[in-house]
């Protein structure tokens, strides 16, 4: 079999065109999310000499072997893993910061101090009606501040659960999408541009999924992926063309838990885990705040019950309610504050019971406990922020490392553009030469 110069040139021109197309595609997608740089692999087409034709030259040009997708599985899985960790830390810190602002910006601490201060001021003249009124008003401010802090915490919890619900929906959408991509991947021809696009989609979906929950992936021979949640022994989220349903349940105290196809699963990373951790902390803070409010209510009410009001009658409860959410002042009349010991007459200036109440408050130390609570939250935020920053920079560098390897380098593409353009021109010149040779042969007389 002989060679055909014209068809060699044709194959050269064709592959150069294809390579130019791929280069153009790379340039066009230089900043597309999840796009992985393609490059062409060319292969010589030639036949070995047959029996008795040992010296024969049998060259047939070049052909496009495959379009190579420059993905590094390890770096991709690193991006997923570190991204998952960073998403968890970000969600947790964001939740904790909201909890902190809910408690801190309600000015609960200063309102408790203000209440203590008003009682101390009343000690200077226990029968003064304006001082008594100021105690009632500062008690009202304090109880409302408790209410505000409580409802702010509720709002934080609601928004965290709302976001978590949305995340769960996203996970289900992504899992379904991934199962469809799996089905199509199983049918796609090897190394076709169809397959590379599907692979891009697969990787991009996996990365999006890893933002919400940490995934364990197994890649099969046909390039489909099996996804598990909650570690390598966890239940399967996606297996071939089938996707299980991921669901969330809310407990009475507002914390959340997850199931996958009715099997309980605990993700270790991803934004859902972060939200779940923030909600656990929120339940904790809530319990402490309620205990604080309840302690204050019972201390003051117990002291009130031991004393006599301004008109000499037995003292009545100053606060109603059992926690931060429902604490309220029970009376408007400052005369009902029991400053005098039980059994005193009307208008008694004896501050005995007021002193007892202030001592009981000093022992219970609501302001000190509030400070502890604030310190607890703020140090949690400070500590987690450091972790978050570290995880973020790890995730960023993993993502940059992947980008550096899999992304499009425009300089590189510029060089390719020139190289394949020159190859195309050269193939054209080969065709010219073939024509010249043909003309020479025709021209023999």
């Amino acid at each position, binding site marked *: 079999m002989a060679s055909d110069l014209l068809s060699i040139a044709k194959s050269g021109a064709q592959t150069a065109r294809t390579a130019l197309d791929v280069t153009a595609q790379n340039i066009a997608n*230089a*900043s597309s999310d999840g796009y992985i*740089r393609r490059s062409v692999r060319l292969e010589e087409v030639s036949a070995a000499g047959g029996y008795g034709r040992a010296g024969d030259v049998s060259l047939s040009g070049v052909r496009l072997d495959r379009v190579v997708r*420059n993905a590094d599985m390890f770096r991709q899985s690193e991006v997923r893993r570190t991204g998952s960790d960073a998403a968890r830390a970000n969600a947790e810190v964001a939740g904790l*910061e909201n909890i*902190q*602002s809910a408690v*801190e910006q309600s000015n609960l*601490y*200063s309102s408790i*101090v*203000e209440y*203590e*201060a008003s009682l*101390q*001021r009343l*000690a*200077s*003249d226990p*029968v*003064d009606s304006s001082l008594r009124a100021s105690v009632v008003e500062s008690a009202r401010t304090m109880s409302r501040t408790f209410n505000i802090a409580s409802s702010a915490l509720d709002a934080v919890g609601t928004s965290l659960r709302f976001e978590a619900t949305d995340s769960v929906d996203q996970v289900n959408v992504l899992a379904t999408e991934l199962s469809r991509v799996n089905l199509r991947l199983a049918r796609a021809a090897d190394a076709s541009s169809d397959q590379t696009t599907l692979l891009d989609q697969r990787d991009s979906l996996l990365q999006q999924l890893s933002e919400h929950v940490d995934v364990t992936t197994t890649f099969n021979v046909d390039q489909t992926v099996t996804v598990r949640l909650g570690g390598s022994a966890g239940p399967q989220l996606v297996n071939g063309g089938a996707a299980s349903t991921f669901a969330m349940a809310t407990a009475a105290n507002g914390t959340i838990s997850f199931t996958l196809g009715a099997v309980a699963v605990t993700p270790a990373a991803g934004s859902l885990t972060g939200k779940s951790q923030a909600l656990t902390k929120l339940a904790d803070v809530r319990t402490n705040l309620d205990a604080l409010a309840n302690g204050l209510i019972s201390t003051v009410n117990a002291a009130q019950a031991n004393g006599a009001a301004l008109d000499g009658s037995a003292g009545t409860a100053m606060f109603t309610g059992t926690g931060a959410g429902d604490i309220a002042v029970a009376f408007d009349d400052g005369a009902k504050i029991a400053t005098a010991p039980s059994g005193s*007459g*009307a*208008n*008694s*200036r*004896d*501050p005995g019971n007021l002193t007892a109440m202030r001592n009981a408050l000093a022992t219970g130390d609501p*302001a000190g406990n509030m*400070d502890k609570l*604030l*310190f607890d*939250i*703020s*140090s949690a*935020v*400070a500590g987690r*922020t450091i972790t978050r920053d570290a995880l973020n920079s790890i995730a*960023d560098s993993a*993502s*940059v490392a992947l*980008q*550096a*390897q*899999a*992304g*499009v*380098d*425009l*300089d*590189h593409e*510029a*060089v390719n*553009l*020139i190289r394949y353009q020159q190859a195309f021109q050269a193939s054209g010149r080969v065709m010219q030469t073939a024509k010249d040779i043909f003309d020479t042969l025709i021209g023999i007389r």
Partner: protein
Amino acid sequence: MINNSTSAFFERSTMGLSGLRKQAETIQNQLATGQKMARSSDDPVGASKLRLLARADSLSNIDTVNANRASTDLTLTDTALGSFADYIARVRELAMQAGNDTLTGTQRVGIATELEQIHGNLVALANTRDSAGHSLFGGETAGNAYTLDGSGNAVYAGTASAGELPLGDGQTVSRGLTGPEFLNFSVNGNPTDLMAVVKQLADAVGGAVADPAAAARDSLDALSTGLDAVTTSQTIVGARLAWIDLTTERRIDLSELRTNEQIEVGATDEASAIARLQEVMLALEASQASFAKLAKLSLFDVVG
């Protein structure tokens, strides 16, 4: 092959530039607010310290108000005690006059009238009100310190003690004196009080006894004992005022300490903050300039 992808270059540049920007903004915020912390989580320990300091400050303000009040009441007590001393001096003068045997009965009746007036004034003075309108010498009573019984004798109606007022840091001061503390004394082992002495003197000089002149001379001893009791009490009040001054000074010292600590823990150190801002700005400008230069470098410009 090392492939330096374009998007990686832009991503790295964005990360570097935004990091520097964030630092600059944090310092700028510290300078603008004058506070190192925008939230508790910026420095949990410092924030807790600041909260405790603020609490101590607001409670100390109340102590200041209480101390001022005690100081006012004690000053009022001091003034009233001075008036008591003046009246006793006048009663002594009158008693000495009445003790003169040469006086006629009519003249003595005149003296007795003045003594009765003085008795009334003493009762009114003993019922003086304090700055809050309560009885100054009645302890913790709601009404008057002294009431007059059917025969015109002053009877103490107050409580046994004047009560303590907290001055902060566990210190207290007795906010005043009760009437019996300075008006009651004993003469020859018999307990009596100033008002009773004056009343008896007025009655005696007015002719209730056979020898008014002798009775008037006898009362001089009791009167000087009464004067002693009043002046002793004035000393006590002076000492209490000095005690309040001492605690006030201490409170001011502590408040200065707290302010210093608040500045140390919470306030921005402007000099170092500005220097750091300058440093960050320099780095930011340099990276912006180098980014702009590098981003302009494209092979497409050259091969076009």
